[in-house]
């Protein structure tokens, strides 16, 4: 059993705060995900995700505000359009598309955040290490 290495890109206003909320409630979840704070999930370009895989990440998460609740009004709409396409590209390239995970977590949803992290870590653990696959 290996320890999957996961990078989570979280928007500053909802998801990062959701992670803080989970912390304040002392909810426990696996330590695999390392969080990178960005202003908005719309900031995440496909190139950044691909670069993260290139560094050997086993999974990448992009979490933003719920559609309709974006701090930047509609920044996350672009995320909702870009990331599914990137997932398709992963699929067509023979890379498990579930290695890229997109979801919406609000500042109040500490419990959801913890669940999302638990589930995704579990899901990635079930896959072989990314670098192994690519050998």
């Amino acid at each position, binding site marked *: 059993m290996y320890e999957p290495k996961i*990078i989570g890109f979280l928007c500053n206003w909802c998801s990062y705060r959701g992670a803080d909320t989970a912390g304040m409630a002392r909810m426990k979840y696996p*330590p695999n995900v390392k969080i*990178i704070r*960005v202003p*908005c999930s719309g900031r995440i370009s496909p*190139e950044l995700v691909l670069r993260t895989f290139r560094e050997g990440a086993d999974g990448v998460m992009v979490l933003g505000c719920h559609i309709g609740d974006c701090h*930047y009004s509609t920044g996350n709409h672009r995320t909702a359009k870009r990331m599914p396409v990137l997932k398709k590209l992963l699929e067509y390239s023979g890379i498990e598309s579930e290695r890229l995970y997109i979801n919406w977590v609000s500042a*109040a949803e500490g419990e959801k955040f913890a669940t999302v992290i638990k589930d995704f870590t579990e899901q990635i653990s079930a896959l072989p290490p990314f670098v192994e696959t690519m050998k």
Partner: protein
Amino acid sequence: MSPTKRPKERIGVYVCHCGSNIAGVVDVAEVSAWAGKELEQDGVVVARDYKFMCSSLGQELIERDIKEKGLTRVVVAACSPHLHEPTFRAACARAGVNPYLFEMTNIREQDSWVTTDKIEATKKAKALIAAAVGRVAYQKPLESLYVPIDPNVLVVGGGVTGIQAALEIANSGQHVYLVEREPSIGGHMAQFDKTFPTLDCSACILTPKMFDAGNHKNITLLTWSEVEKVEGYIGNFTVTIRKRARYIDESLCTGCGVCWEKCPKKVVDPVFEAGLGYRKAVYVPFPQAVPKYPVIDRENCTYYLKGTCKACEKFCPTGAIKFDQQDEILTVKVGNIILATGYDLFDARKIPNYGYGRLPNVFTSLEFERMTNAAGPTLGKVVLRDGVTQPKSVAIIHCVGSRDKNYNNYCSGICCMQSLKFAHLVKEKTGGEVYQFYIDMRTPGKTYDEFYQRIIQEGANMIRGKVAEITDTARHPSEEGKLIVQVEDTLVGKQRRIPVDMVVLSAGLEARADAKEVAQKFGISCSADDWFIERHPKLDPVATMTDGVFVAGACQGPKDIPASVAQGAAAAARVLSIIGQGEIEIEAATAIVDEATCVGCKECIASCPYQAIQYLEDKGKAYVQEALCKGCGTCVGTCLPKSISLKHFTDEQIVAEMIGAMQTMKSFETVEAA
């Protein structure tokens, strides 16, 4: 391994113990020693751990290192940057390092508090610090933008909280727009008869404040109005307000009351009378209404429904009735906004086992408030739904829709005291038997518990148990014709059935039904229960995450009158302190276009949520208007040649941060494999 040639910087790393909050789980000494050694090649020249980094001593430690060791970059690993980023940015600035050359990483909320395994938590802290160190070398000094503050203030909601806030600001000499959706200000407090625990008359203490707000030279009162749109940012909001047509010419109306006397159409008043009484189709909600002008309820007015009537018009002595009046759209400029939009009562019909809406003699707390009010539908008499019979026994049920995951999980805070007040009023007005059904008695305010003791002394029956059901199905002749309250008396451990004539449900407080929409309009956020979220639950209770927007009173969470008034005044003080500063700093992290590489494809322009990017026709390039840019970076995510970048969140910075974390994780793997 770095994305481009790594800049040579002198970095200091500071690991906070946060007492035992972090140090109890993360081996902070080990982490700082590791950072000093393993991250030396990345530019770390000093790494320390300290009990409380945010304390003045902790800050001084950083400032001293900056000066003595010539640090050019600072990383603090502590709590959430949402808490202390401003603290450390300020410390850096004091010591001469640009605040944007500081980076904070969160090893408390996102590590020590959520990780069980101490070794894993320590490893995670290292990875997060390596990420921050990776990033910080690429950070660039930024200059903050300053904008002047418009001294005008918008207060939304004319309940006791909004009135208090508006008066405080107006008295200081600043101008306030007070917007209220109902025809009169006064809010819920105007509906009550007595207030706990002093039992003084609600109207007697509220009316003078309402009058002051209505006649203040610095207050523009906009009732029967709603905010439609909010644009701009702190210091410079542009607010669009819809002033709904009253169908009354305010310049002619004297508030004499002939129109509502003569109006033949009587309708149930679901708002002020809580559905327990009637009003006319042209009405003021209550006699002391401010302003004094009535409104015509278009949906129920016979003239609008059938085309004839106009009784009000015929009798109006000043010709103030204007059936063709239109809504007005006003645009006002303000620098700060206070939201005091209050609460809704929990809809007790949602609990089928309590029978409200089905069993006539089950009443809600607000109905009971109106019933006990001398100006209410029963002129203050406590009677059954038939309007005449006085109940001989009354059950008062606490926690209706509160402390219940099926409805609202939180404690509504005010119901215990309100219920005790009801018990007193029942005793006073009917002399009948009173039963209080409670789960836990919560009376933490000043002289509140004394009030509780007084009510016990007055002879109220206290039964500890959450009522299971209220039924009119008798099992025994003694129960016939009564409402039976079925409950487990938890102190006895037995099921009891208590027949009464009347039941009062102390319904909980809920966020306004449209709280989410309002929050979105003002750019703030709601908790899972739809209450507005304050900036910090303890240390910043009336500010929000959106600069220039404040919340006060029950829109932020259940509150009684004293707490609401205190918050109204607190929000006013916060606003006045900002106005006093004259200008304010705004976010410096905006997008910028590299004209040399921009190909002018306009994709960024289409993707900007704020229309902040212009197309320069002469150059064929994009251009970011800084004052409009909010710094989301959506354009950066779009741009194919990466000609546009977001200050403080550049690709170099994010990639370096990611690599820092990945490299550290990989190094642990190698060590473990070996």
